[in-house]
């Protein structure tokens, strides 16, 4: 495919899920038993043949760096290119960025240096499998200046949204920012393709003019100024816009078809951990659940996502829960609709319940 560099916003829309981003950046939110959200955009890039990825970070990125390391698990520990962290306060940006445009401004030094002709920019708050090289092919075929990827679904309440009107030939005729209309819309999924040189020109021009918003000041008026095209992504797409949508995006993995779409065919890369295989005691009863390495189950588990090293004590019943890494649930507990962040302990006999639209959240490292 055409030589392409990737850029990922690891720290975007964090205000949507304050519970989970209190201790980490958006990209390092644990997901699906053994992954972090950033794994999906990053694996999509690697599986599209991209070997140079700039990771834009903001604050709270220790956990993300711990996860990514040198990038070897994504095959991105390279002599030339590979995974390159783009921390704040570097290059052109003297302050901590407040929006996407300022963040990109901080990445200009990186973009000037790379040799690749095209750039794919993606967020890290969504779970989907997309071959970006197909978007690049489309971009070239349409002779577009910018190609934006959309997914058709019912608009959800979120901090930031963008929807398109698209002409028959794929050209974007109108961009609506924070739309008020409801129903099924063409939602921008924050995946953008452009020529590297064109994007650089846009950013430098925007800096000169004192623009503040990539969407409002560049893309929206851009429908009249540039060749803006839309690429329709038809696969499974889950955007994490709230604790509730985080819960749903995990639970949907219990659907075999979606599990196969996300994990089948091409691997989702992630940091590898040396946990022993999951152990089921003779008192274990597990139904419709994902169980990771290192789990020890002595109780009853139904419709759950269990991350690595979760222990479920005897006589305990856990239903519709997401229990992150190293949660220890004692004996004779009852948990339902609980999302428990890493390293928490629930003592014997506790009864905790949330509900489907409002799961009960346990902070990282709590003792209950």
């Amino acid at each position, binding site marked *: 495919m055409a030589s392409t560099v990737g850029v990922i916003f690891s720290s975007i829309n964090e205000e949507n899920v304050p519970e989970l981003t209190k201790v980490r950046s958006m990209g390092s939110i644990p997901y*699906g*038993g*053994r992954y972090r959200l950033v794994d999906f955009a990053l694996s999509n890039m690697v599986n599209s043949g991209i070997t140079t990825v700039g990771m834009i970070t903001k604050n709270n990125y220790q956990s993300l760096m711990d996860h990514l390391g040198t990038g*070897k698990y994504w095959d991105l520990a390279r002599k030339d290119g590979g995974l390159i962290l783009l921390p704040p306060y570097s290059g052109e940006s003297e302050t901590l960025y407040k929006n996407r445009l300022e963040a990109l401004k901080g990445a200009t030094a990186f973009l000037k240096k790379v040799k690749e002709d095209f750039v794919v920019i993606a967020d890290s708050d969504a779970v989907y499998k997309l071959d970006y090289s197909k978007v690049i092919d489309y971009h070239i075929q349409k002779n577009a200046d910018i190609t934006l990827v959309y997914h058709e679904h019912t608009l959800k309440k979120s901090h930031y949204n963008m929807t398109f009107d698209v002409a028959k030939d794929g050209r974007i005729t109108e961009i609506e920012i924070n739309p008020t209309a409801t129903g099924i819309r063409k939602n921008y999924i924050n995946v953008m393709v452009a020529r590297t040189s064109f994007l650089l020109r846009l950013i430098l021009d925007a800096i000169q003019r004192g623009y503040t918003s990539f969407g409002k000041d560049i893309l929206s008026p851009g429908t009249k100024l540039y060749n803006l095209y839309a690429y329709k992504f038809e696969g499974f797409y889950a955007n994490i816009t709230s604790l509730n949508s985080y819960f749903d995006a995990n639970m949907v*993995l*219990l659907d*075999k078809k979606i*599990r196969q779409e*996300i*994990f089948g065919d091409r*691997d*989702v*890369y*992630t940091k*590898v*951990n*040396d*946990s*022993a*295989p*999951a*152990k*089921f*005691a*003779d008192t*274990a*009863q*597990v*139904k*419709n*659940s*994902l*169980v*990771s*390495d*290192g789990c*020890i189950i*002595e109780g009853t*588990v139904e419709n759950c*996502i*269990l*991350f690595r090293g979760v222990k479920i004590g005897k006589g305990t019943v856990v239903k519709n829960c997401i229990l992150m890494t190293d949660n220890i649930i004692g004996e004779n507990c009852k948990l339902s609709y609980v999302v428990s962040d890493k390293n928490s302990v629930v003592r014997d006999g506790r009864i905790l319940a949330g509900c489907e639209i409002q799961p009960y959240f346990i902070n990282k490292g709590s003792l209950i």
Partner: protein
Amino acid sequence: MLRKKECVAMLLAGGQGSRLYELTSNIAKPAVAFGAKYRIIDFPLSNCINSGIDTVGVLTQYQPLVLNEYIGNGQPWDLDRTFGGVHILSPYEAKKDTSWYKGTANAIYQNIRFMKMYDPEYVLILSGDHIYKMDYDKMLAAHKAANAACTIACMQVPMKEASRFGILNTNKDGTIYEFEEKPAAPKSDLASMGIYIFTAEKLFKYLELDDKDPKSEKDFGKNVLPAMLNAGEKMYSYRFDGYWKDVGTISSLWEANMDLLGVVPNFELSDRDRVMCSRSPLAPPAFIEGEVINSIVATGGEIEGTVINSVVGTNCIIEKGAEVIDSVLMGNITVKAGAKINYSIIDEDVCIGEKAIIGAARSEAVKVESKTNGIAVLGRGISVKKGGKIPAGEIADKDV
């Protein structure tokens, strides 16, 4: 700059393991899958890194493809180093002569230059067919304290089994006065575990002497160790009392896998002080829908059937109505609906058709006369057709 390693480990991984029959027909014994997500070689390699030994030569000879691919650059064991790390040492062609490794001592002798590159004080000799966790650093400390030329790790075995092992006859202070290889009438129950620490200069000296001896079988147990003892070198025994299992036979491999089961198992893999490392596959967590009892299951599984007292490896699919009891499934195995697997070991990449019947209930199977104590064994890559049968104690090496 310090270009030296105090201790270099040499891991003998060339053996065929003929008593594992079909399981080693095209892979070396140390590469045989174990405990759902491991291979046998993970144990000595993890022990090395957990004991602070970061230079390991792996001597391969028999069917090394899977093993070489698995070890790769050693990264999963933290053995990708700029100086040291893990190195695959296969037989090579030299100016004077070309030869395969002829016995354990000859294999080490042929790689004397590799060891000398690191200018070691000590050399640790390991074999790649045992399941155990051991701190070699403690053994090295004992070797140094005893000022020995060679220290042999040993453990107590039941007296009636002692004649199967190399037996050490020791004095009260732990020094060895006699070494007997598989004696008919053993005088002691201290069996050699095949783990030796040599003071490097002594090892090099006796390997060179052994090489010049035309009568020698080039074997550590039979030749080098007795020669050292006869020459009056200080030989010392190091007692080990943890879990250790030779998985050289089908039934011992099955038992060692079963020793991992239970909340308090005979052999614990999940203690976090001495983490067992392995090359982990990129698979999502296991999906569990069926009944899974007293078993371990690795990632990537899709378990909709029943699994009881079993070890299920990576990426296994067990369909609705299928039953897996008292069995070891090594990895990437599909068990179709209604198939029944009892008291079996199934190698990687096997497909079991609908309603196939593999093995028999353990209580019945153990009565069957066979090389495998009644365990049904299915070789790598075979398929069993719909309704196919493999009786207890059979070894299947082709599609059934």
